[in-house]
C-alpha cells in the first residue's frame, strides 16, 4: 500500500516535471518576444515625430504591456509548478524515509534511481529484511524530534523487537527547517551542524542541494569565505541542475573578492553571466563586475 502511494507520487512528480519544462520554454519564448519588441519600440521611438511612427509606436507599447503581463502570468505559473514539484518531492522523501523505517526494506519504488534527485533509502538499511519483522540490524536508529527545547528521548533503537514509533522522529524537512531557522537567527554554528547532519543522514533527498547551498551561506555569514567557497563548489559541481546554482556562483564569486582574489572572483562571475544570462543573479554579477572597474 505504502509502495503504491510512493509510486503514485513518483508518477505525479514526473508529470509535473514535464509540465514545468513546457512552462519554462514558453516563458523563455515570451521573454525573447518582449526583448525583441523592446528593441523595436526603441528603434521606432528614435524615428518618432516624423512619418507616422507615433501610432505604430503606440501600438507597440500596448503590445509590449500585454506581453509583460503575460510574461508575469507565465512566471507565476512557473513558480507554482516548481513549488508543487518540490512539495511532491518532499512528500516523497518523507514517505520513503517512513517506508525504510517501517519495513526495513530498501524502498526503490518506480525506478527512482534514474532521476538523480529522488531519495534513495537511508544509509545502512538492510535491503532484504522482511517487512513487519524489523530486527536489530534493520531500521536506522533515529534521533528525537528536533528543536532546542525538546527534551532528549530514550533512543528507540534500544527496543529492537518493536516497530519504531514514527511520531517521535524528525522528518528530513524538520531537520532542514530547524537548521534554516538557526541560520536566519545568525546561530551559524548550529546551522552548520544542522545542515551537515542533514547531508549525512538524508543524502539522497530532494533538499540536499538546498542544504548544501545554505551550508555555504552559513560559512559566508561567519565570513569563513574559504569554507564557503568549498561548500558552494560542491553544490555547483554535484548538483548542476539545482535552482540554487546561479546564487551559489554569485556568492562564490563574492567570497573570492572578499578574500581579495580578484581574478578568481571575476572568473566565477563571468561564468555565471555566460551560463545563466537571464537570471537575476547574473544581473547582480554584472553589477559587482561593474563595481570592480
Amino acid at each position, binding site marked *: 500500500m505504502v509502495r503504491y502511494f510512493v509510486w503514485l507520487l513518483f508518477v505525479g512528480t514526473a508529470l509535473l516535471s514535464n509540465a514545468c519544462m513546457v512552462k519554462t520554454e514558453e516563458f523563455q519564448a515570451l521573454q525573447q518576444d518582449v526583448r525583441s519588441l523592446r528593441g523595436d519600440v526603441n528603434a521606432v521611438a528614435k524615428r518618432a515625430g516624423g512619418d507616422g511612427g507615433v501610432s505604430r509606436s503606440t501600438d507597440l507599447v500596448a503590445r509590449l504591456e500585454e506581453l509583460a503581463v503575460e510574461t508575469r502570468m507565465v512566471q507565476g*505559473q512557473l513558480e507554482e509548478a516548481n*513549488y508543487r514539484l518540490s512539495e511532491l518531492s518532499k512528500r516523497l522523501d518523507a514517505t520513503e524515509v517512513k517506508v525504510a523505517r517501517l519495513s526495513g526494506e530498501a524502498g526503490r519504488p518506480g525506478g527512482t534511481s534514474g532521476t538523480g534527485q529522488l531519495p534513495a533509502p537511508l544509509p545502512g538499511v538492510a535491503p532484504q529484511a522482511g517487512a513487519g519483522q524489523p530486527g536489530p540490524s534493520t531500521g536506522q536508529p533515529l*534521533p528525537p524530534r528536533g528543536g532546542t527545547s525538546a527534551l532528549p528521548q530514550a533512543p528507540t533503537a534500544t527496543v529492537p523487537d518493536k516497530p519504531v514509533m514514527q511520531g517521535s522522529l524528525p522528518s528530513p524537512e524538520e531537520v532542514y527547517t530547524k537548521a534554516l531557522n538557526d541560520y536566519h537567527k545568525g546561530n551559524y554554528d548550529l546551522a552548520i551542524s544542522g545542515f551537515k547532519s542533514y547531508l549525512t543522514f538524508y543524502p539522497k533527498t530532494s533538499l540536499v542541494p538546498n542544504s548544501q547551498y545554505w551550508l555555504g551561506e552559513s560559512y559566508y555569514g561567519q565570513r569563513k569565505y574559504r569554507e564557503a567557497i568549498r561548500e558552494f563548489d560542491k553544490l555547483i559541481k554535484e548538483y548542476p541542475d539545482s535552482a540554487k546554482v546561479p546564487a551559489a556562483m554569485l556568492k562564490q564569486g563574492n567570497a573570492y573578492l572578499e578574500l581579495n582574489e580578484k581574478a578568481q572572483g571575476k572568473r566565477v562571475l563571468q561564468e555565471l553571466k555566460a551560463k545563466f544570462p537571464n537570471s537575476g543573479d547574473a544581473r547582480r554579477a554584472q553589477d559587482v563586475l561593474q563595481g570592480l572597474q
Partner: protein
Amino acid sequence: MTRLARIIWLLVLSSGLLAVGASAQVDITVTRTVIQRIPIAVVGLRPSGVSGGGDLVAQALSVLVDDLEFSTVFEVLPASFLPFDARQVRLGEEEKVLPSLNHLKVQAMVVAELTQQGKDLTLEGRVYNVSRGVFLGGKRYLGEVTAIRSMVHRLADEVVLRLTGERGVASTRIAYASAEKGATELYLMDYDGHNPTIATGNRSINLSPRFSPDAKLLAYTSYRDGNPDLYLLNLETGRRDKVSASPGLNIAPGWSPTGQWLALSLSKDGGTNLYLMRPTGGALRRLTNGHAISVSPSFSPNGRQIVFTSDRGGSPQIYMMDLEGANLERLTFEGEYNASARWSPRGDKIAFASNRGGGGFQIYLMNPNGTGVQQITTVGVNEDPAWSPDGRHLVFTSNRSGRKDIYVMHADGSGQKRLTRSGSKSFAPDWSP
C-alpha cells in the same frame, strides 16, 4: 547506540548547553512549549505613601499588573488569593511574607512603594524568587507625577528581565498612521495605547513609519513636498531629514538589524524595485529588476535575507532574497494576495497578511521557508502585522469595530486588544525596539 543517534544526542546536548550559557543571569529557567505563566504576587503600593490620596497608587498598581500580565511570562495572583493584606506590606518588611507565599507555590514576588514630594514621585520596586527565598534585585525610579506610567513600565520591564533574562516590552512605543481632516499624520503611543502624540504634523500624507534598531530614528514616507519622499525623523532632537527623493515613489522602508542599511522601493527606473541605501542617503544599491512591483521589505535577524511582496508572478506574493538581491525564492502559493511580511526578531516566523480564506485579509504566520502556515486572526479584516521586539506579540490593523484601529495580540493570536480609540482611521503600525 549507533553513530546517528549519538550525533543527534550530541546536537541536542550542545543546544542545551548553549541555551544555559546564554541565560546565566536568568533566575527562573522556563522551558515552555505552550505558554506556562510564572505565578507572581504583587504586594505593597500602600495608598498612604502618596499625599493626594490613593488614585496614583491605584493607577500604578493597575499599570504594573497589566504590564506583567501582557508579558505572557506571568500570571498575577489576585490579592484575595493571598493569605495577608497585600496592599499593607511595607517595603523592607516583605521578606516576612515570603514563607507563606512559598507555601502556596507562588514562584515570584514584586514589592513596590510609591512616595510623593510635591510634584515628584519616587517608585521603588524589589523582585524575589519566592521558592528559593532569594532577593533578585531592586530599582528606584524618580519622576514627575505625569511620568507615573512610564516609571511603572520600567519597573515591569525590570521584573521581566530579573526573572527571565529577557527585556520586557512595557517601555516600548508604537508608531502608526492616522487619517484625519484630509491629512494622514504619524503618531507615537505607549505600547498599551496611552499617551498618543503626533510625530509629523505637516497636514500632508505620511505613511509606513519604521523605527531604527536603536529606536532613535523613525523612517517614513511623506508627500509633504508633493512627491512621496523618504524622511528620517530623529526622535530625540525632532530633526527631520529627507534622505531619498528620486522622481516617483520612495516608499515602504525596512531597516537592517544593525541599522546600517535601509531597504526601500523606488520607481525611478520603471517598475517599482527594491534598493538598499545608507540611512544617511548614500550608496544606493539595486536589489530587484524589471517592471514588476516589489515593496514592503523586512530583514531576517541575521541581516542576510529580506522578505518582500512582489507581483512578478502576476499576483502579489511574498518572496525572499538575500542582501545581494540574489537567491530569490517565492514563499507563498495560496491565495491571490499575500503581503506585508514581517520577520520575527526571534527568526523562526514570518507574519503576513493574506486573503487566502476569502472575505478579506487575515494575519498568518509561516516558517521562513514558507511551510507551517498558521492563521492567527479571524474577526473582521486584519492586516499590517508588526512584531514586538521580544517576538512575543504582534501589533496590527483591524476594522472589526467598524473603523480601522490599532490592535495588539500575543504571537499565538490570543489576547487581542484594541489600542486606538481616537475616532480617526488608524493603521500601518510599527513597534519600537
